[in-house]
């Protein structure tokens, strides 16, 4: 089994790579749609600007590759910026995103009086059963670094919630597509367990 990791110039992939290798996964880090489509499951990580990232995805045909991959029914995991790019659009530079899950990525409001980015460890409380949370206690802490958060329209796509001034969707899913706002690859043993769950997940 090979895990494809989408390389689209959106941040450092090293930590995702080392975490997957520590779990014994065979990985293929690539920016080629053809190569990625031959893998058994797909991860698209990413940090940075949603508009810049989606522009790179489009320029390389990776937006269509991700859509095609999702359509095959094989498991797909978005991480951090990846959890925003699956939505219809982002408030960040008014980016048009992939539209795989209905909703918008919103910025934490200055009215909350909190520091933005939301950076550090925060509790993730699952609101639905999902194999990705197998063996992970409700309220376990995961590492976050982000200024925008997923705000899906359909509550049935929310997998888990986290509180930072407001309660936001820190994990979302639709069918074989799962996306998490936090960084499982930087979230200690619970994070590694989540990645292992994804490797075991049949979609």
């Amino acid at each position, binding site marked *: 089994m090979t895990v494809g990791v989408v390389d689209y110039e959106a941040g450092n992939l090293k930590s995702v790579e*080392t975490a997957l290798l*520590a779990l014994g996964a065979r990985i293929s880090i690539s920016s080629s749609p053809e190569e990625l489509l031959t893998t058994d499951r797909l991860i698209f990580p990413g*940090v940075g600007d949603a508009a810049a990232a989606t522009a790179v995805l489009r320029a390389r045909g990776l937006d269509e590759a991700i859509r095609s991959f999702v359509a095959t029914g094989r498991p797909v995991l978005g991480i951090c910026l990846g959890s925003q790019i699956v939505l219809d659009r982002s408030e960040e530079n008014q980016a048009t995103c992939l539209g795989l899950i209905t909703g918008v990525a919103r910025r934490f409001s200055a009215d909350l009086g909190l*520091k933005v980015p939301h950076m550090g460890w925060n509790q993730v409380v699952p609101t639905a059963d999902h194999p990705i949370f197998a063996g992970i206690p409700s309220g*376990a802490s995961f590492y976050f670094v982000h200024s925008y958060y997923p705000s899906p329209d359909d509550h049935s796509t929310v997998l888990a919630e986290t509180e930072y001034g407001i309660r936001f969707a820190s994990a979302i899913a639709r069918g074989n597509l799962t996306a998490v706002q936090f960084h499982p690859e930087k979230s200690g043993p619970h994070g590694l367990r989540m990645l292992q769950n994804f490797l075991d997940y049949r979609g």
Partner: protein
Amino acid sequence: MLEKRIVVCLDVRDGKTTKGIKFQGNVDIGDPVEMARTYYHAGADELVFYDITASAEHRGIMIDVVERVAREIFIPFSVGGGIASLDQMRSVLLAGAEKVSLNSQAVNNPGIIDEGARAFGNQCIVLGMDVLADTTMPSGYRVVIQGGRTPTERDVLAWAREAVDRGAGEIVLNSIDADGTKAGYDCIVTRLISEAVSVPVVASGGAGTPQHIETVFRDGAADAALVASMVHYGEYSVADIKRHLHGAGVPVRMDGVDVG
């Protein structure tokens, strides 16, 4: 609720962890990779490695340390010390560090903050500030560089604001007066900076007891606290600190820590 972070700091010299008092008289205390692994399993939320290698020819050793650390720990860690160019930042980040910390080099060449933030994102760029109380400065604190040896003309508050405007995503604020004293953090300067900037502030210098850490979270409005000697010599464990904070009602990550 966002938790307060305990950041364990390892000073690394020529590939060995070392600890000095007021930046003088360093002694080697262990292997950084082994220590990183121990702190990771003990519940540290984040690690910082400062490369205080004296000679340029030994800098490559640090990259090797970073690569080995990255394979073993799965929490964020940053690397600082002597980073002066985009290429150096890139090599540290590609070796597996989450963030780079810029200190003296940012004072000498502030544009490096903008360049780093543009190339790697604000969340990768940490401003390290060494500060000394000085009543002649507008904020009451002066920025010092080269490990506290060289005073600058910069005021701490103005420099913190400028660095954040340029793209720094976090500030590690180290009080030279408090460093190594184990008498507690400087809560006044920590609060001053934490309330003035939108990014997280990590308090550094002076930790001696878990109570000091509780105090800098409450009175200093710190988002994270950096600890070194108080955990390196076995006086307190990361778990001791977290149990104290948890008991005092400070939100901390208790995963892996026996509540006791």
